[in-house]
């Protein structure tokens, strides 16, 4: 995952320390208790407001705000979305369980189910490697993301 960094000569232990610092930073952005901060802060850093959007299941909020410490990556690469209303958390297709084994495995089971039923290698491939909510297109053969149908990690640990 971090292969480019040791290749650039960054000591391996420093890579893990940096990742830990990154995760420690992300602790405080997982809250609904902090509203919006000073504008320059919201522009550069990942904030509770930005990160609530990341965990939202609303169509507007899916696949947005992936940043760790800095939000500028999302601004640069087109995945930024400001918080316009209070997000709804959870999955677009709720799992309806608190069993951690089911929570961990159900998406893989669902993918395997889709792959088994899919006809043709192209469609089987699409379910495994396509974006969330991918479905075979009836005629053109090109898959398009069905955003409202997608599952995200909203509400999960990550």
């Amino acid at each position: 995952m971090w292969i480019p960094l040791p290749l650039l000569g960054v000591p391996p232990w420093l890579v893990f320390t940096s990742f830990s610092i990154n995760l420690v930073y992300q602790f405080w952005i997982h809250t609904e208790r902090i509203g919006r901060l000073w504008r320059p802060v919201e522009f550069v850093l990942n904030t509770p407001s930005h990160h609530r959007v990341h965990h939202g299941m609303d169509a507007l909020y899916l696949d947005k705000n992936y940043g760790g410490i800095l939000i500028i990556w999302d601004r640069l690469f087109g995945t930024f979305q400001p918080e316009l209303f209070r997000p709804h958390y959870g999955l677009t297709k709720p799992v309806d369980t608190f069993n951690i084994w089911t929570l961990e495995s159900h998406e893989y089971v669902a993918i395997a189910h889709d792959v088994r039923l899919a006809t043709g290698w192209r469609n089987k491939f699409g379910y495994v490697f396509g974006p969330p909510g991918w479905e075979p297109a009836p005629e053109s053969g090109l898959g398009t993301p069905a955003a409202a149908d997608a599952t995200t990690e909203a509400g999960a640990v990550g």
Partner: protein
Amino acid sequence: MDQLGAVLSVLPAPMRDPVLVAVPFFVLFLAIEWTAARKLEHLDAESESESRFESGRPARGSYLDRDARASISMGLVSVATMGAWKFLGLLGYAALYAYVAPWQLSASQWYTWVIALVGVDVLFYAYHRIATGSG
């Protein structure tokens, strides 16, 4: 704090993880937020009823016990599996650093830390997006 220091001193210096030091603060802030959610619940109930959101949602910032318990359990499992992957990763990265990298940056130089922190952040963005999004 002495006990924490003793635990950390068992590990070689490069493996002393800052997350360990942060854990007491995680617990402290969770407690503050949980208390705030309970104290302020009635305030939220008032404002939510006027808002355009449907009723039946938990109050802003509140915890659902079963949900919190499931999340924490999954987090503990994740710590164990991540630990295994990190160990394998460390071996591979050490080999790349020692044998393939054209130079070795010194951890006592400030710019090494900048490269590490910014590099990890942009890679985190990329992998986070590949793992959960449309890539």
